[in-house]
């Protein structure tokens, strides 16, 4: 890809999102939210969208439409009006608690795996107004589930969480398959491409390769930049762990924290040669105010799309090619605090979730109509030119 991603449109939402993903069939965008639901949008080609006459201001949850924040409205106006794709809100999936931190689509079936911060794991169809979950487990973990990974064949899913467990489940019925107890909070995990092992990363930025069938740690290596002890705060910087190709390169990404509290730190992407556990590349994206790489999307054409979020207002979308030390593309304008990036299966469109401007501030600040304002995550739809 040589040309820059093109803005298609920015869609407003009414809450903060954590983890946007497109369904493999390409018809649904889903995202866990900070308000105990999974938000869904139907991905509609423009002419269809006209037929159903939806607007991005449409009410969610069937409530009367709220006025979008003025800035977002402006964003929407500024976005290309002739966007070929619309994201049409579908009713959210409810029944969860706290934050829905991680979701993952089944690789072959029309199912979505959802986990929440109270330890619930569920498998649900993602189409239909109020789909009934195929199975659910309210006590899958005894703490926040931080990540769900799906094996390549879709038969297994793995979860990890603050209860220091890795658990493996049968994706069809949610029956436990394996578990492994670790010694600290686990932030990220992924299956190896052959599906025989799980790699997970903990609070202390240690990466462990788990033979889950034997409940055995095969080997461990350090991703040292992703941890610091600041006074007594363990500052965990790992946010992403994924294989980039056929399994040779493992990517870890997140933040190289400078300290706790504010959590100033530099967004970092690190490639490991998986066979040896040796780091082969470390890309630092800016200064300590820029924070975390929160999410990445691996484009099958061989490049990486990553998004960052740092001090309120700071956010980046970057494109990084294999072996290169610098991103080939960096975009900051209009992208404050990006928390996820979802690549559409058409390999052309992707969505970045960002945060409204002015999301922070000390003390009392009310809206014009006297309400205490929350923040929201606009969906920024981009297109990679053919």
């Amino acid at each position: 890809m040589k040309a820059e991603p093109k803005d298609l449109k920015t869609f407003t939402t009414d809450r903060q999102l954590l983890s946007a993903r497109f369904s493999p069939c390409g018809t649904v965008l889903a995202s866990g939210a900070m308000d105990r639901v999974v938000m869904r949008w139907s991905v509609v080609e423009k002419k269809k969208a006209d037929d159903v006459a939806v607007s991005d201001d449409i009410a969610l949850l069937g409530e009367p439409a709220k006025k979008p924040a003025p800035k977002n409205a402006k964003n929407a106006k500024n976005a290309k009006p002739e966007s070929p794709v619309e994201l049409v809100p579908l009713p959210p999936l409810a029944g969860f608690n706290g934050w829905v931190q991680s979701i993952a689509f089944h690789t072959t079936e029309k199912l979505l795996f959802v986990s929440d911060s109270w330890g619930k794991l569920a498998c649900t169809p993602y189409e239909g107004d109020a789909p009934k979950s195929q199975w659910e487990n309210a006590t899958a973990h005894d703490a926040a589930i931080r990540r769900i990974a799906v094996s390549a064949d879709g038969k297994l899913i793995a979860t990890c969480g603050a209860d220091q467990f890795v658990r493996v489940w049968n994706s069809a019925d949610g029956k436990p398959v394996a578990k492994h107890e670790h010694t600290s909070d686990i932030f990220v995990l992924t299956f190896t491409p052959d599906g025989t092992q799980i790699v997970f990363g903990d609070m202390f930025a240690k990466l462990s390769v788990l033979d889950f069938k034997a409940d055995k740690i095969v080997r461990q290596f350090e991703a040292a930049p992703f941890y610091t002890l600041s006074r007594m705060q363990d500052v965990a910087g790992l946010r992403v762990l994924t294989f980039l190709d056929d399994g040779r390169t493992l990517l870890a990404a997140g933040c190289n924290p400078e300290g706790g509290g504010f959590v100033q730190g530099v967004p970092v992407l690190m490639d490991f040669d998986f066979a040896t556990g040796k780091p082969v590349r470390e890309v630092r994206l800016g200064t300590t105010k820029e924070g975390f790489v929160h999410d990445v999307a691996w484009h099958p054409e061989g490049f990486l799309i990553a998004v960052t979020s740092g001090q309120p207002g700071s956010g980046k979308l970057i494109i990084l090619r294999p072996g290169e030390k610098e991103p080939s593309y960096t975009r900051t304008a209009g992208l404050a605090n990006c928390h996820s990036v979802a690549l559409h299966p058409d390999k052309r469109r992707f969505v970045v979730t960002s945060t409204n401007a002015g999301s922070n501030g000390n003390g009392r600040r009310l809206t014009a109509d006297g309400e205490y304002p929350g923040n929201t995550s606009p969906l920024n739809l981009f297109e990679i030119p053919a």
Partner: protein
Amino acid sequence: MNPLCKPWEHAVSRRRFLGASAGAFAFGALGGLATAQAAEAMRKNEKQVLFVWLDGGISQLESWDPKPNTPFGGPFRAIPTSVPGTHFSELMAKSAKQAHRLCVLRSLCTQDNSHSSGVARIQRGDPRNRGVPYPYFGSAIAKLMGPTSSKLPPYVWIKPDSGGFKTEDAGFLGPKYGSLAFGDGKPPENLLRNASLAADEDEERNELREMLNKRYAAQRRTNFTEASSYVFDTARELMRRSEIFDTSKLPPKDQDRYGRTEIGRHMLIARNMLEAGVRFVKVANYGWDTHGDNFNGHASLVPKFDRAFAAIIEDLAASGLLENTLVVAMSEFGRTPRINGHVGRDHWPEAWSLAMAGCGVKPGAVVGATNDNGTFVKDNGYDIGAVFHTWYSALGIDSKTVEYDNHGQPLPIAHEEMKAIKEALV
């Protein structure tokens, strides 16, 4: 212009002042308390204070006042406590078991959302501006109550980083009401007997010194010689009891219970000092200003505080000291309900919480409440001035009549337009 002096804003204080000014220039004659009787009454009190300061601002939502499953509630669960109907954040699992001994105030509503001024404002009780820096709570207690009969220094501050003789908390009371600070829990320089000296040698050389002093003092005015003897006697007393300050030998079992963390270690030292009879112990912990990654931050920090705090409450209760010890855990403000783009929470003085226990406060109580989303207090909030009145009341100090005497200027010990929170008191 930043006025140095803004007193006497209404007639009441002024009359009071003029009434007291007849003897106003007998500097320090009353030891800085408005009446000698008041000073005497205070001294008899053997109450103690543990003041836990979480600098930077612990989030009320991730501790004492959870709002699970609300837009600003964050990811954590609320858990039941030992008091039916009262819930804390799941990060406070151990303190939840001590809830029947705690009194949680959930409707703090204070004035300042900046650290630089907020820390001082809160610890001074934010009185009306009198143009003089008010003492922090610890120095105030050192002044109002003095040392206990243990004769140990009345105000000990256990803190990260450096220690020493810290005078800045004392404000207008003057440096001698400052704190003896244990930097990273270690005793101030020169407190422990120099390693080159054996105990009997030290005693002998001190006896020589006293012999010389006695002869010198016999022929001279008493002012200077008395002051000089006093500090040497106190130094001797302190050194005699140095085992309490020798923090290198904490029992491993206790260390496990309190947590092998900075706050765990410091809280354990605090317990030893309270047991030894230090009047006021402040334990300060830094790094709570979670503008970014608030939830992982609190997930790491709160359980460390929780473990140490629950352990000391349990121990003080077991030894019976809790009955006479006022325990307070707080920050300079809470954190915003709104979660910013950096997944942090900012400063929030509008509606936040603190916890108390022990001496004079109502065990198992929850006082005040925030609204359903935790954004503002229900009904009326309490400012820190009311909290100071509450603490003084719990300690048996009548904050409506006891005053400081700042070189003839009588000053209320807490904001004169506020009063103690009755629901929080036994």
